[in-house]
Every structure is written in structure tokens, then in C-alpha cells.
């Protein structure tokens, strides 16, 4: 592939090195402070009462006995959280999810909360709250929720363009594509149609949601919280509670994993409301069971795929119909599924139609490349079937149809330089492809895509008098980004990595930064830091010019020092950043650089995965033998943490493919809200996960960076699905491919 020469020729000094992370020692010694690790003088313990019903009218909540219990300082219900957002539906949805408003919409929906002097008292108070429920009919399955006679989850919801008088669970229908589908299928020699289902999974961060909230009678508040976006949390909490944005300071703690699940508020407004009512700080930490029942999960889906292809291997038409459940509140998850479904391919005639459907389950939150893994499972499984039908190698078939620079993507834009082709070439050449398989073993591969995101960002670079550098960023460090961002500042200023200290600033210190989502942390804060450093360099040059007594135009910045160019200045010694900094009190005061940017230009990212499995035909148990991830990073700033993203995403995908699912009973209650029964992969479940970083620079970033965090959760469901199907000789169409499902599929095929 040809790349923009200005990127491929870029020579870096520290970018791409594997330096120790700056927060490493704190995190291996137990010093790092996470959401539940903060305390405040006089703090109370907050706890939430949750609905035991999947769907119920709340006729009355009697809190008098709880309020009378000694040691209880505040009890709140939705009456304490009135509408402060002028009926804005998106914000009201968030508020209603924080605390039920007259109706419990899912098992685990918060209905009341207490703040008490200790946990024992708070627990006793919860038991004293009397809630009069009238259970209603419920629906938890996405296909059932679309039926005409399904119980209605949100009476106000109408499908755009549909009957304005008819309540429905279909909150949104989205459609993408181009070309003439009928003509495309008419041209096809082979047409394959299949239907798939995927079950609901949870992000499974090991740290449950936790915060410490404090609101005083003057209306000023502070919130310490585990979050992916403390600025977004501030905006949402302030709006929902009727507070002024500037008077609510939100500090992001170290975050114990988020994966999208900590991108919007859950119980933080409740903690603030409790604190406001009790006039004391309130610490609210969710249990694991609450985290499963009340926060985060991704969608379950039901998807139909139809692909037509010619004998020569070209796909002529592709159609996806996708039904995603959003939980009890409308989301954009089906839409994202429709946008990503065909993104890997160059298709003349393509269409995807998505339904966002409400059910009586928790409000769905983003989960790492949200919605893409399920669509990819359905598409990539069918792509394998078409290749088989054509007698083609599945990698060659994908290569022949892969998107490339100039391809019009199924969701609209035309691609710049992209990595799908190179990742597929790397698959062909990967040593794993040559390993001989034994009995009951199968190999599968699949591709995945994610958009990536830029968004609002700002950063400050302060040069210390000793020549060390403080970098303040507003993107939360979820997986080591402070190391990457310090490398970027060191590269740009020409100073050692060790002399840069990167801090995630609170909301009172920097302007708004969008949430760390869409793999934007290193991309967008990296961009803001580069510009802020260049800003600081302008000032450093000016100060150096003053010190050298030469015109600033003659001073250039090279390798971390100011150099006066021109023969007339040949007697002048260069001045290092440290020398200029030391003199800064005399040359004009502190030296800083600042940048605010909407970081446009996020580069799309592609990955291809290879997976070898062995399936025990007696038990249906699948073991992953070998696994390889190949992904385009644009530019790997810190390769260790890029590999870590690839491996972690693959592991989550493997768990989703083989084990993880929300299991609902007929009563609409979640039956497995714990890590014992909702089993995520453990160390002994996995092999080493091989990684290959490809670097196809993103022209939209000064260093060529693409987001790397999400893409590699997209292929595993399909890669494992293809591998298992090849191992057992039966096409798997239902994720997770747990032992009973595999045994059932084998039995059904006999």
C-alpha cells in the first residue's frame, strides 16, 4: 500500500519504546486510589433498594420506618429527584434509570436509597422501606418484544414514521447502504441466508461502580468517582440535580476497568442527592450483584444475513437485518450494528436495517466497539459459508472482497488508507496457519472494524523551572495512556520521558473533555498535547531569543534545545529547555502551552484474528488452543499497551463467544448476577495471545495514530464461531457457544 510519505518517513526518538508506566509503582504497591478507596470526614454509607420485579407499577413507597431508624441520615426516592431538565427525554431517561419514577422497568431497577452512619444501619434501613408493587407483564427477549402483542416497556415510545397512536417497543429503525440489492442478488451464482442470535454480556470490569459525593448547603459539590468521563459525569449530574456546572467538581479516581460501562452516570446522582439531603459526604459503592443487575450490559441480538456472490468470488449483494435490544431505554445500539456490519468489505449493493428494541432489562451501555461484535459474528459466519460454497479459501475470499482506499463504506464515507487488506495478508503469512490440526480441532478466522472517535479535548503543558514538564489531560487513563501521552510530550519537546509527569486533571482544572470512549484517549489527548507542546515551544523560542539577544525568527527548536541559526550567530551556544526554564522568572514568567481542539480525523481501524480450538465431542467444552490478533494501530506509541489492548479485547471476545451470557428466568429476573455463574475467562482458560501490530498511518493525526482499544473485540465471536463450526462440522449460529449449545447443535445435525 502507498501511504502519505510525511507519515511513513516520520522518525521518532521515544515514540514506540516500551518505557515503564508512570503509575506502575502505585499500582503494584496498593497505593493507587480507586473509586472505593477515598474517604471524607463524617462520611455516610449510601445504599440502594432495587426492584425484585422485571416490570411493575410502584403504587407507594413508605420510607417512614427507615427514616425513623437511629443512624439513618437520609432516605430518597424519585420524589427527591424532580425533573430539572425541562422534560428533555434523553436526560430524563438517565434520571429514570438512576431511580424508578412510578414504574420499575427491570429486575434491579433502583427504587429508593438511604444514607446511614454505617453499612449495618444502611442495610437495616433498606429492609424497612416498604414498596407496594403491582407486577406487570414483562418481556426480555428481543424478538418477542417486537411482536404486536408484546408488553410495552415505555408507553411514550413511537417508531419514527410509524403509527403515531400506537405504542411500540421499536424505538428506532435505521437503514444504511447503497446500490441495487435486487439486481445484485439476481447477478449472484450463490446466495446464502442464515439467522443468528447473540446473548447479552456485561463489560465485567473488576471494579464495581463507586463514588464519594459531597454537597454543601451553599450548592457547591464534589464528586470522587470511578468513571471514563468525569466531565460528562459533571454535566449530567449537574443537569439532573439542578446544580451549576462550575460548582460541581468531579475528580476521576483511578479506574478499575470500564470498557464503555463507565461512560454515563448510574448511581452518582443518587449519591449526590443523598449527600444534599443529609448534608454529609456519602460514599456509595455498588456490589457485584448490583453491578450485574443494574448497570452496563451490552445488547442481546437477533440477526439475519443474506449474501450473494458470483462464481469468481465477488460478492454481488449483501443484506443484514439486525434486531438489538437496548434494555428499558432507547439507544443507538442497533444503528451502530447496522453501520459496522459490512464495513470490512467493498460491496456494490449493500443494505443493513436495524431495529432498536426496548425490553425489561437494564439500560444498555457501550461495551467496547459497541454493537460491532454481534454484527460481525453474523456477517463473518456467513462469509465463511459463502466461501465454502464457492470452494474458496476463506482468507482469499475476504481479500478479494476487502475494502480498500477509495472504497465507499456501506455506512456512507469513502475510506482513506486502511488496514483490512494488510491484516488479511498477514493472516495468510502467519505461522499459525501452517500448524497441523488434530481430531476435533478447528481453525477459524474473522475480520472486524471499528470507527474510532476524536471529540472535544484540551490539554495544558507546564514547563517547570528545573526543566521537567507537567502535562494535564482530561481523558481518563483506563489502560496506561499516561505512559503514551508522556511519550508524546517527551517526543515533541525533545526531553527525556522520565522528566514528563502526566496527570488526569479534575473538572475544575481543565475545560471540557469528552469521555474516554471510542478509543479516543491517546488519539485525541495525544493531538492536544502535540499542539500544546508546539505552543510551549513558541514561547521557549521567544525566551531563548531574549536570552541570546537575537530575533526570534532566527531561533529554531531542535532536539529539545533552542538553536540560533545563521553564521552571524555561530558563536551562540544552543540553550536547552532546562536552561531556558531556569531563567523563566526573569524572562517573562512561567512557560506553558495549551490547546483546545475538536479532535477530528479519527482513523478507522481493522483487525483480523486467527483462532484454533478443540471441542470435546462428549461434553461440548471448547478449548482455545492458539489465538492470534493482527490489527492496524496507525502508530503504536507504546507497543506494550497496544498489544495489551489487542489481547484484552480478544479475551473478552473469547469469553463472550464461549461462556458469558445474562440468563433470565421466566419471571424476568436475572439468574446469574455474580462471577461464579457469569463466568468470564480465567487464566487457565486461555493460551498466550499472539499479536501483530500493523502501522498504516492515519493521515488525520500528526503522528498517524489510530485508536486501538476496541477493534479487537469485534472478530473473536466469529473467529471462534468459524473455528468451532469447522471442528464439529456444524454451523454454530448462537453465541455463546456454551457446551449445551454445542452439544445441541451436534445432536440436531445428526
Amino acid at each position, binding site marked *: 500500500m502507498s501511504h502519505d510519505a510525511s507519515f511513513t518517513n516520520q522518525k521518532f526518538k521515544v515514540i514506540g519504546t516500551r518505557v515503564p508506566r508512570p503509575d506502575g509503582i502505585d499500582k503494584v*504497591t496498593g497505593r493507587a486510589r480507586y473509586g472505593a478507596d477515598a474517604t471524607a470526614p463524617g462520611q455516610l454509607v449510601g445504599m440502594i433498594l432495587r426492584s425484585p420485579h422485571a416490570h411493575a407499577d410502584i403504587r407507594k413507597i413508605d420510607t417512614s420506618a427507615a427514616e425513623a431508624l437511629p443512624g439513618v441520615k437520609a432516605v430518597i426516592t424519585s420524589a427527591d429527584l424532580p425533573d430539572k431538565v425541562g422534560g428533555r427525554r434523553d436526560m430524563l431517561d438517565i434520571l429514570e434509570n438512576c431511580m424508578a419514577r412510578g414504574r420499575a422497568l427491570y429486575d434491579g431497577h433502583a427504587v429508593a436509597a438511604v444514607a446511614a452512619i454505617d453499612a449495618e444501619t444502611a442495610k437495616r434501613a433498606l429492609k424497612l422501606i416498604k414498596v407496594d408493587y403491582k407486577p406487570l407483564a414483562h418481556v426480555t427477549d428481543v424478538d418477542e418484544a417486537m411482536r404486536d402483542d408484546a408488553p410495552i416497556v415505555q408507553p411514550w415510545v413511537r417508531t419514527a414514521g410509524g403509527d403515531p397512536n400506537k405504542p411500540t417497543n421499536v424505538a428506532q429503525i435505521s437503514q444504511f447502504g447503497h446500490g441495487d440489492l435486487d439486481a445484485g442478488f439476481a447477478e449472484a451464482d450463490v446466495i446464502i441466508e442464515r439467522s443468528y442470535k447473540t446473548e447479552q454480556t456485561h463489560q465485567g470490569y473488576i*471494579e464495581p461502580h463507586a463514588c464519594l459525593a459531597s454537597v454543601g448547603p451553599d450548592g457547591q459539590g464534589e464528586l470522587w468517582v470511578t468513571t471514563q468521563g468525569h466531565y460528562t459525569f459533571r454535566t449530567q449530574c449537574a443537569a439532573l440535580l439542578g446544580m451549576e456546572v462550575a460548582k460541581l467538581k468531579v475528580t476521576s479516581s483511578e479506574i478499575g476497568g470500564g470498557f464503555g460501562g463507565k461512560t454515563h452516570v448510574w448511581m452518582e446522582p443518587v449519591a449526590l442527592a443523598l449527600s444534599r439531603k443529609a448534608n454529609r459526604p456519602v460514599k456509595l459503592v455498588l456490589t457485584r450483584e448490583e453491578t450485574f443487575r443494574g448497570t452496563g450490559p451490552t445488547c442481546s441480538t437477533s440477526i439475519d444475513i443474506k449474501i450473494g456472490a458470483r462464481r469468481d468470488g465477488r460478492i454481488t449483494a449483501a443484506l443484514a437485518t439486525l434486531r438489538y435490544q437496548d434494555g428499558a431505554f432507547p439507544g443507538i445500539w442497533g444503528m451502530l450494528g447496522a453501520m459496522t456490519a459490512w464495513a470490512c468489505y467493498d460491496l456494490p449493493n449493500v443494505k443493513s436495517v436495524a431495529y432498536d428494541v426496548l425490553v425489561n432489562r437494564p439500560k444498555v451501555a457501550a461495551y467496547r466497539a459497541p454493537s460491532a461484535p454481534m454484527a460481525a459474528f453474523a456477517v463473518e459466519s456467513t462469509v465463511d459459508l459463502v466461501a465454502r460454497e464457492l470452494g474458496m479459501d476463506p482468507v482469499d475470499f475476504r481479500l478479494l472482497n476487502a475494502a480498500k482506499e477509495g472504497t465507499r463504506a456501506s455506512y456512507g464515507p469513502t475510506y482513506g488508507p486502511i488496514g483490512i487488506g494488510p491484516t488479511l495478508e498477514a493472516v495468510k503469512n502467519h505461522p499459525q496457519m501452517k500448524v497441523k490440526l488434530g481430531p476435533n480441532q478447528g481453525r477459524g478466522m474473522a475480520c472486524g472494524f471499528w470507527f474510532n472517535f476524536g471529540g472535544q479535548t484540551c490539554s495544558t503543558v507546564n514547563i517547570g523551572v528545573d526543566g521537567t514538564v507537567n502535562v494535564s489531560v482530561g481523558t481518563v487513563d483506563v489502560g496506561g495512556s499516561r505512559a503514551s501521552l508522556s511519550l508524546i510530550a517527551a517526543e515533541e519537546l525533545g526531553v527525556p520521558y522520565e522528566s514528563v509527569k502526566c496527570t488526569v486533571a479534575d473538572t475544575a482544572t481543565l475545560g471540557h473533555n469528552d469521555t474516554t470512549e471510542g478509543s479516543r484517549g491517546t488519539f485525541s489527548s495525544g493531538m492536544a498535547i502535540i499542539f500544546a507542546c508546539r505552543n510551549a515551544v513558541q514561547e521557549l523560542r521567544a525566551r531563548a531569543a531574549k536570552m541570546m539577544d537575537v530575533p526570534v525568527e532566527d531561533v529554531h527548536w531542535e532536539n529539545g534545545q533552542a538553536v540560533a541559526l545563521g553564521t552571524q550567530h555561530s558563536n551562540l551556544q544552543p540553550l536547552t529547555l532546562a536552561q531556558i526554564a531556569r531563567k523563566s522568572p526573569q524572562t517573562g514568567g512561567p512557560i506553558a502551552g495549551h490547546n483546545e481542539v475538536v479532535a477530528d480525523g479519527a482513523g478507522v481501524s481493522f483487525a483480523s484474528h486467527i483462532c484454533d480450538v478443540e471441542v470435546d465431542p462428549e461434553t461440548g467444552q471448547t478449548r482455545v488452543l492458539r489465538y492470534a490478533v493482527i490489527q492496524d494501530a496507525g502508530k503504536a506509541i507504546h507497543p506494550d499497551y497496544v498489544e495489551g489492548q489487542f489481547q484484552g479485547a480478544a479475551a473478552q471476545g473469547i469469553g463472550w463467544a464461549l461462556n458469558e451470557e445474562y440468563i433470565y428466568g421466566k419471571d424476568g429476573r436475572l439468574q446469574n448476577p455474580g462471577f461464579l455463574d457469569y463466568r468470564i475467562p480465567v487464566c487457565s482458560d486461555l493460551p498466550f495471545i499472539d499479536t501483530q501490530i500493523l502501522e498504516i498511518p492515519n493521515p488525520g493525526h500528526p503522528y498517524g495514530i489510530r485508536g486501538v482499544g476496541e477493534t479487537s473485540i469485534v472478530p473473536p465471536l466469529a473467529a471462534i464461531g468459524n473455528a468451532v463450526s469447522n471442528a464439529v462440522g456444524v454451523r454454530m449460529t448462537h453465541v455463546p457457544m456454551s457446551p449445551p449449545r454445542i452439544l445441541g447443535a451436534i445432536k440436531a445435525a445428526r
Partner: protein
Amino acid sequence: MAGVHVSTTINGDPVEFVCQPGEVLLDVLRNRIGLTGAKEGCGTGDCGACSVTVDGRLVCACLVLGAEVEGRSVTTVEGLASGGELHPLQRKFIEHAALQCGICTPGFLVAAKALLDRNASPSEEEIRYALAGNLCRCTGYDKIVRAVQAAASELATDATRKSGKASGSKSGRKSTKKQVA
């Protein structure tokens, strides 16, 4: 309910505390002693984030009562380093990027040390099974296993040198940088 008075040793220091009879060791450590290194990921013994050792035995602090550690010796992640000197496991975790968010790291370090204390040169499989009670959602365990292998090999080299059998040519501090496949 009347509190229970407990005298115990935590990370080598004599400690006394009063706790409720039903209060778990994890809450005692975090809320009464101020040692927040052990984390609560589940409270049911399924995630290992609260791993500590009691008289050298690896336990989930969320499944042990505070009152049970009377007269015993508890070690938490805060007790792994000696002074400013990190334990080799701690160093190798940083060197190998074996942590991302880091919430599971204290539990993994305590569990890995418990493994190396009883088996100085574990196989990959032995490491994977010994750490199977500790959940990590970020790393896919790859770099964690490599860090434990590197620490084991460094400790073995140090032990050999101490016992006088070392040739002196090998550096126990040598960083084991990985190869990108």
C-alpha cells in the same frame, strides 16, 4: 452488637483492632486499618481482587472474618515490597506491562507470591492454574503469566547466586524484553 478485640500481625507490624463479629477481614483492612490495596471486586470469593495471605496461606479476605486473624500473620500487597525495594514480582509486572487498569494487580501479586513461595519454578500451566482464582478483565492474562515467569526466573538466578553455585556471568536484573511476533 459488641465488638471483638483482635490482636494480630499485619505486614510484620503488631496491630490491634475491634471489629463486629460478622465483619470480614477485607472490610477490616480497608475501613479500619486503612490498607486499601486489597480490593472488593465481588465479595463472594470469585474474583481474587482481595487476595491476602494468612500465615502464608492464600485466602480471599472477603471470605475470612476479621475475628479469625487473632494471633495470626496477615500479608497484603502493601507488605510485598521491603522498604524502597520492590519485590521482583512487582518489578516484573511493571516491566512486562502486566497491568492495565491495575485493580486486580494487588490480588495477582499476592497470589503469584504465594505460588512462588511454594513452587519456585512453576510451569506455564502451573502458573495459569495457580492464578485461576484471580480475575483480570483487561489483559487476557498473557503479560501477567510472562511477568510471573520472569520473576520466577530472576528469583531462581538470585537463589543460585546466593547459594554460591552461580557462575557470576548472568545478571539477575536483566530485563526480559519480549519479542514482537
